[in-house]
């Protein structure tokens, strides 16, 4: 292939195919370079200026999120954020979306999503300790969706299991809007033992740039711009963008990087993973952050394929690669160190002081542009926004459920894919490797202890996009608070958040309004409970044939459990324990699973969330847990009280006998800020005294798997075993 000339690129507007707009191209050629960019240079700008790398559409919105607290050591802008947890230790975490790659090639897309987020963590010098994932698919009705689900789940498990990190939590939801645009978000949490971490910078004249890891092939060229493209059903030509993962190499790379930073921090000045937009993004960011320039010699880059040109090498998204900035006097030590791990490591360039980004290929200078123009000069867009019409039209609509038979509805709800047990999927993930997992998937949060201390880390992924669709602001708040309740219910103190913001096309004003308002919601909730957003990821253009997904912010929250004695799970422990509902229940049926079950679609507005009340409940539960008053704790989410009660009985095959003032319908209401707890009878008065809010005594745990329920309308006795069977087997049945 002969490369088009700079003039051809301009005349034939070839840059448009790579995602650059006319005005962006104009800016590059007339203001920044004052000449026409050549083929390679145009390619570099097109990826670096894509939404995926530059956040040009979302930056303004992202600034609304709080990112400071007394724990924050590093926030957004690094590969991952860092929070101090005392004793000179810190947690490092981030989430990343891999939606488009997974839609095209589900197994490898999901696998490389996991691989990529793990690299973000160990490039901070942290030892990864756990993985989570948040998945959204279309309904499990046709073979195609089932295949997609199976492959995505297999890809996530395939990578995490092989590299040896426990997957301890996550969520899977099914809604029509994700049928052609599934969401695959992965999160990794790491532990940093030396808070003197390595920045991802390339500084200091004549310091060397070292390439480590897998060889470069043509994988995923233009993956970053492609991730920012809308989908249409003509997807064949995008298939060349598939990257494949090699978790075995990543394990070596992870162990080597963690060890080199821990044992030989003096050798290296910076380290960064090659993620989206591979070599260009990692090296340009490192140089730009340090205020340096860079010379790269592509002939030194380890190559898997022949006859790659500079453009392909710079943009390749081959996996399992890192770049380091190394002091010349230690370069032999560094190369030798990686060789011991049987990894390729070579010097490919050098730091300069002129702030230019220069690339040589086959002895020719193929790129010579200001480094900052790739990372800093990206135009920032201020998109038009407008409240979605549906919100105005349906403002006063209230869904009124209709319950003929409480027992029937109850069993039906337990079988809904969004509510039923996801064990069919998560049991294919190794959740215990490393022998630190205290709470495996299936409770409210995953909990991993920190060996050698009394501490543990609780973590969860949450995103009820149905709420965000009905009311982005309140829905955003709920996503944060639901995550926080999951952390609190597990015995933790929420300390920080990462997110994946999955939305439609930002050039559509309604979609942009959804983004903006939900981020405001997230921000206000995070501020309320002092959980800064320290990292995250934006995935826009999630549309298929112009139909957007629900606005789907995924909140990944991390909590600190200062004493592992406080770890609490959601299952009832013993008969005769007393069951309480903390928080008031109202008629919150808009956006509920019950609305989907009975009405078949979403409609209506959400009630405002009382953040003070929410925080009070979380604080009270935390106090009760630390005073050892609580034996089990479960937050109420989809399906409300009925579902929470049921889920609590399954693990230990217990039952309950309760009497409530709620109506039968309200058993399924999804009012926020509620917890279901059990306490030992002897702690009754201490608990009631502590709870300075609305609590309702419901009844007792019983030894047999029976649900004995008296609501305001009726009394029923139903079989807990049947309920358990419905809940446990629903997904397996659907997947057949």
């Amino acid at each position, binding site marked *: 292939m002969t490369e088009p000339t700079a003039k051809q690129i301009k005349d034939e507007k070839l840059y448009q195919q790579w995602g650059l707009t006319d005005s962006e191209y104009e800016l590059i050629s007339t203001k920044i370079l004052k000449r026409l960019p050549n083929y390679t240079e145009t390619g570099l700008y097109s990826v670096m200026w894509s939404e995926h790398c530059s956040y040009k559409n979302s930056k303004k919105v992202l600034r609304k999120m709080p990112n400071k607290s007394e724990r924050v050591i590093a926030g957004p802008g690094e590969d991952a954020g860092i929070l101090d947890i005392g004793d000179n230790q810190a947690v490092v975490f981030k989430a990343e979306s891999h939606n488009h790659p997974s839609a095209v090639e589900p197994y490898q897309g999901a696998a490389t999503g996991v691989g990529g987020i793990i690299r973000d963590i160990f490039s901070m010098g942290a030892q990864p300790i756990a993985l989570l994932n948040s998945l959204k698919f279309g309904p499990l009705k046709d073979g195609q969706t089932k295949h997609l689900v199976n492959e995505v789940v*297999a890809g996530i*498990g*395939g990578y995490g*299991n*092989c*590299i*040896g990190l426990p997957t301890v939590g996550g969520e899977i939801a099914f809604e029509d809007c994700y049928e052609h645009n599934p969401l695959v978000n992965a999160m990794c949490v790491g532990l940093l033992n030396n808070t003197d971490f390595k920045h991802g910078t390339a500084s200091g004249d004549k310091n060397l740039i070292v390439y480590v890891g897998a060889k470069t092939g043509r994988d995923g060229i233009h993956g970053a711009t492609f991730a920012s493209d809308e989908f249409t059903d003509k997807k064949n030509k995008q298939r060349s963008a598939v990257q494949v993962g*090699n*978790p*075995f190499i990543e*394990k*070596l790379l992870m162990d080597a990087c963690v060890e080199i930073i821990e044992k030989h921090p003096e050798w290296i000045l910076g380290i960064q993973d090659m993620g989206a937009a591979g070599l260009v993004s990692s090296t340009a960011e490192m140089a730009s952050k340090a205020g340096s320039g860079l010379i790269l010699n592509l002939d030194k880059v380890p190559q898997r394929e022949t006859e790659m040109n500079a453009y392909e090498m710079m943009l390749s998204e081959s996996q399992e690669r890192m770049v380091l900035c190394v002091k010349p006097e230690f370069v032999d030590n560094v190369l030798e160190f990686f060789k011991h791990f*049987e990894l390729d490591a070579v010097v490919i360039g050098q730091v300069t002081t002129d702030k230019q980004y220069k690339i040589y290929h086959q002895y020719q200078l193929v790129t010579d542009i200001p480094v900052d123009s790739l990372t800093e000069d990206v135009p920032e867009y201020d998109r038009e926004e407008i409240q979605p019409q549906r919100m105005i039209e349906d403002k006063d609509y209230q869904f009124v459920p209709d319950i003929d038979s409480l027992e029937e509805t109850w069993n039906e709800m337990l079988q809904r894919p969004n509510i039923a047990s996801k064990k069919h999927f998560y*049991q*294919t*993930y*190794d*959740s*215990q*490797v*490393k*022998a*630190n*997992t*205290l709470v*495996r998937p299936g409770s409210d949060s995953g909990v991993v*202890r920190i*060996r050698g201390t009394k501490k543990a880390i609780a973590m969860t992924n949450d995103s009820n996009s149905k709420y965000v669709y009905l009311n982005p602001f309140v829905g955003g708040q709920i996503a944060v608070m639901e995550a926080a309740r999951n952390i609190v219910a597990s015995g933790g103190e929420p300390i920080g958040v990462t997110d994946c913001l999955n939305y439609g096309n930002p050039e559509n004003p309604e979609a942009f309004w959804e983004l903006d308002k939900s981020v405001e919601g997230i921000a206000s909730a995070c501020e309320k409970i002092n959980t800064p957003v320290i990292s995250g990821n934006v995935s826009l253009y999630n549309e298929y044939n112009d139909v957007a997904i629900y606005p789907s912010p995924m909140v990944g929250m991390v909590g600190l459990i200062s004493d*592992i004695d406080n*770890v609490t799970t959601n299952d009832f422990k013993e008969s005769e324990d007393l069951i309480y509902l903390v928080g008031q229940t109202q008629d919150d049926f808009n956006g509920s699973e019950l609305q989907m079950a009975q009405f078949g679609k979403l409609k209506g507005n959400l009630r405002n969330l009382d953040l003070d009340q929410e925080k009070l409940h979380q604080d009270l539960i935390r106090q009760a847990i630390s005073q050892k008053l609580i034996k089990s704790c479960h937050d109420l989410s989809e399906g409300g009280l009925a579902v929470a009660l049921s889920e609590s009985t399954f693990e230990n095959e217990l039952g309950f006998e309760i009497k409530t003032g709620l109506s039968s319908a309200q058993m399924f209401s999804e009012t926020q800020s509620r917890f279901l707890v059990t306490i030992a009878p002897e702690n009754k008065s201490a608990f009631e005294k502590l709870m300075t809010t609305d609590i309702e005594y419901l009844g007792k745990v019983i030894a047999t798997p029976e649900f004995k329920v008296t609501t305001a309308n009726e009394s029923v006795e139903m079989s807990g075993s049947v309920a358990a069977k419905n809940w446990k087997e629903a997904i397996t049945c659907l997947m057949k």
Partner: protein
Amino acid sequence: MKFAVINFPGSNCDMDLYYAVRDGIEQQVELVDYRAQSLEGFDGVLIPGGFSYGDYLRSGAIAVHAPIVKEIIRFANEGKIVLGICNGFQILTELGLLPGALIQNGQSRFICETVALRVVNNETAFTNGYSKNEIINIPIAHGEGRYYCDDKTLSELEANNQIVFKYLENVNGSVEHIAGVTNKQKNVLGMMPHPERAIEKILGSDDGLKLFQSIINYQVKVNN
């Protein structure tokens, strides 16, 4: 006692085993690199779980050609203690130190779960701390853990009491529910379940601790 935990590229339960020995039974333990040439000075060899060499080709198949393996064979032939867990079991069968093979689970998926095992033979170096037919809860996490051997091998295993653990419920389709077997001499044990993940109550079970304690009991007896 001094244990070696062999570290192959891709092993990922090496530290779990290391801690099980160091903290669980408070014995000496060292990680030994796959390129090492000697196991001199060690009393027991532990081969950890994970995905050695990515488990590409077949699980355990490539590890067999690592330099340390010659020493493992010598060690086993001298009657010393060798324990392979999960990938370690797969490696031991690939090596021929244990009979049979481990192939893809019957349900063709990876499965991670805590399962009940029956201690079929409690008279080995690895199980003397359990009672016969004791039911213990130990986690499994594998995609290729279905034990297979031909009928002739099976009758030999039975005749020699080489079957040590059986699954109560056949989680992966193994021949005769087999979860762990020894060699004829009974100094080499391979098992798919992970006892090193079950040495503390807070991890869900401490039923695996007795396995490591059994090795100590056995060694004390041998030494006396």
